[in-house]
């Protein structure tokens, strides 16, 4: 009788697959987790972060200040706005010069700017109040208008200016709710303190922050506007906040940014008084346009650090449960001896089981990758996708998918060998569990700054798969390294398979109790 029969091998393979598909755990970890749970988690997490960030950005902070501080602060912001590129741009838009633009679609955007916004602080105040809660219809219209225009150059030139405008006018002014010291409800008896006050409502303000009635407290000395322009004066201001409270931290950051910009503005005006240009204080400026990497490459670099890890985990989980079930599980359920009593040889049994685990591991990894690609296409918000500018070529997808084969082959051999050696399902779980931690290091190799793929690393299993996947995603397909990677992984897989087959011939392993 021959030692290997393909028919018997296929019979074992088919039966094991059928049985596995009836096992809920395997279906969950090999199919449902990679297809649904992780992409949903990723997307859900992405959206959650997006939502939280959006909430944080739109969150109104309460700032305690007296009437005089509030008026001065408003004036400082208004003056900054008037001198900012955005403010100056708006002034132009209000002028007759901009009339020609009215007929263009972009001109409609200027219609939203109220007349006098750069001249009258009251108009400015009302306008910024509308910016605080933008009308969704208006927002959508603006988005449509922007989509029609090629604004790449405008975005490049005015990106910095727009960011400053957002920081100072929107976050630092429009999204601030002022609270008067008189209306803050803090028990008078608690306010009493021996500490000297920095300003009249210092103690009251500290209590307000600690009790989270307000997020920050500011006070500006009278005549701050003039003091800022006096060349030899430095005025110190304090922002009372509590850095252990996240919203208070956010308020401090916003107010600090406003003060910084106002100070820059004042410095520029001081220089003007001395007939010096604002460039006097800025002899060196680092351009934001120095990064030569395309967005696609930046995204690839980022995804290349994460994807290999996820794919290795999918492959690991996909192979783990079938291996536990087909090895230790069979021993525990006492079905292994039934199988050994059939005419199937140990080689056929070992290979039949091995290829089932391999299929499951490979399927989980392939499903994981497919699911992630589809999730990216379908679930990822369009704005983020546009920003990432990331598309995979068919060659890249195929090359990455080919790397899954040696990975799954290695895991399958290792898991089956360990599983068949174990006395019970639980013992097998305990034996294999530490490997999960051992995997983390090689799988995370791509995020280590000094680690780059070379011929030596291409021979280290898993590290090579992680690094090569990253290179492939970046579009750097090195077939020589690919050959080394597949070769080394296949060699390890072959050793694992040989070890597995040997285990199936050892009585002390099969009947270990």
């Amino acid at each position, binding site marked *: *009788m021959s030692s290997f*029969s393909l*028919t*018997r091998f296929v*019979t*074992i393979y088919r*039966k094991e697959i*059928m*049985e596995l598909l*009836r*096992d809920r755990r395997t279906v969950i970890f090999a199919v449902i987790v990679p297809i649904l749970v992780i992409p949903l988690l990723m997307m859900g997490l992405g959206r959650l972060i997006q939502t939280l960030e959006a909430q944080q950005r739109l969150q109104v902070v309460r700032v305690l200040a007296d009437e005089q501080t509030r008026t001065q602060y408003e004036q400082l912001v208004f003056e900054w706005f008037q001198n900012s590129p955005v403010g100056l741009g708006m002034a132009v838009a209000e002028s007759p010069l901009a009339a020609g633009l009215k007929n263009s679609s972009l001109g409609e955007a200027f219609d939203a700017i109220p007349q006098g916004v750069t001249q009258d602080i009251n108009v400015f105040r009302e306008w910024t109040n509308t910016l605080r809660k933008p009308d969704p219809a208006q927002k959508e219209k603006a988005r449509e208008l922007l989509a029609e225009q090629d604004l790449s150059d405008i975005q490049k030139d005015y990106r910095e200016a727009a960011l400053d405008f957002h920081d100072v006018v929107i976050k630092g002014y429009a999204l601030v709710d002022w609270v008067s010291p008189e209306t803050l409800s803090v028990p008078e008896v608690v306010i009493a303190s021996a500490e000297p006050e920095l300003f009249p409502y210092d103690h009251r303000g500290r209590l307000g922050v600690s009790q989270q009635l307000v997020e920050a407290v500011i006070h500006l000395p009278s005549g701050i506007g003039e003091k800022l322009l006096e060349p030899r004066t430095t005025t110190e201001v304090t922002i009372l906040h509590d850095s252990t409270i996240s919203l208070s931290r956010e308020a401090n950051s916003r107010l600090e940014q406003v003060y910084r910009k106002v100070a820059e503005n004042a410095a520029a005006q001081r220089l003007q008084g001395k007939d010096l240009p604002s460039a006097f204080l800025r002899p060196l400026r680092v351009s934001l346009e120095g990064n030569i990497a395309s967005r696609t490459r930046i995204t690839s670099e980022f995804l290349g650090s994460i994807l290999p890890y996820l794919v290795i985990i999918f492959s690991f989980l996909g192979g783990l449960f079938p291996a536990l079930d087909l090895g230790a599980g069979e021993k525990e*359920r*006492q*079905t292994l*001896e*039934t199988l*050994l*009593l*059939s*005419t*199937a*040889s140990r080689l056929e049994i070992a290979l039949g089981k091995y290829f089932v685990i391999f299929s499951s591991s490979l399927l989980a990894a392939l499903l994981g990758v497919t699911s992630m690609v589809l999730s990216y296409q379908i679930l990822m918000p369009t704005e983020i996708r546009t920003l990432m500018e990331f598309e995979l070529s068919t060659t890249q997808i195929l090359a990455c998918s080919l790397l899954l084969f040696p990975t799954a082959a290695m895991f399958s051999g290792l898991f089956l060998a360990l599983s068949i050696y174990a006395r019970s399902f639980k013992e097998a779980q305990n034996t294999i569990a530490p490997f999960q931690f051992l995997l983390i290091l090689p799988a995370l190799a791509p995020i280590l700054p000094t680690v780059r793929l070379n011929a030596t690393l291409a021979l280290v299993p898993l590290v090579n798969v992680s690094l090569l996947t990253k290179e492939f995603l970046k579009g750097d397909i090195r077939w020589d390294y690919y050959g080394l990677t597949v070769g080394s992984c296949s060699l390890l897989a072959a050793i694992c398979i040989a070890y597995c087959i040997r285990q199936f011939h050892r*009585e*002390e392993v*099969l*009947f270990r109790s």
Partner: protein
Amino acid sequence: MIEVQNVTKSYRSGKSPVVALDAVSLNCRPGIITGILGPNGAGKSTLLRLISTVLKPTSGTLIVSGFDTVKNPSEVRSCIGFVSNSTALYGRLTPLEVLQYFGSLHGVPQPQLKQRIAELVERFTIGDYARRSIDKLSTGMRQKVSIARAVIHNPQILIFDEPTSGLDVLASRTVIEFLQEARSQGKTVLLSTHLMREVERLCDDLHIIHRGRLYFSGSISEFLSARTPDEEIESTFLRVIQEHGDTHLL
């Protein structure tokens, strides 16, 4: 025909060697039921595993239907049907799937296999639950399926290790009737048990094993003739053990 010639099986337990079978020799002839009797841990299951090729002897030879268990294990397995408590069924499969699977593994051609499955389903009256998951079957139902699985390839040699253990009266009767039927068909039946009544009722030849050694080999009538008047078979068994110098059981 099963020929066990001077077989020893030892293994290591921790650092010390354990002799599970010590120079055991016996024969099982076709057309009779040969009983292996012995207390738990005597070495009965080890002997049956050696015959079934799952284990290899440390020394000695086992010949089954003319095939050496070490040199021709697949040929040996193709002519034996083995049932024991350690040969469970796949819980997620149905009886029909189990029979189909093991029939295919034994290389039974499809048309014959279909017919054989139908015969066994009828013989063991498992039709009512043939498509139900084995996990949902009772112990008796499972044992019937287990026997059907073991004989799917119509082997000439049947090896049953404690086949009625844990079964109710009805299920036990099915097993016993099947063994008697196999004997009448001229098959070699090897039955391992620790139930004296079962031995008395079923076996033609008897071998008593204790602590890995063969204490008695002969026909059941020879064994029973050694019985003193009014002596229970259990007492005879204990006496045989005692005669070999083992007072521990008394």
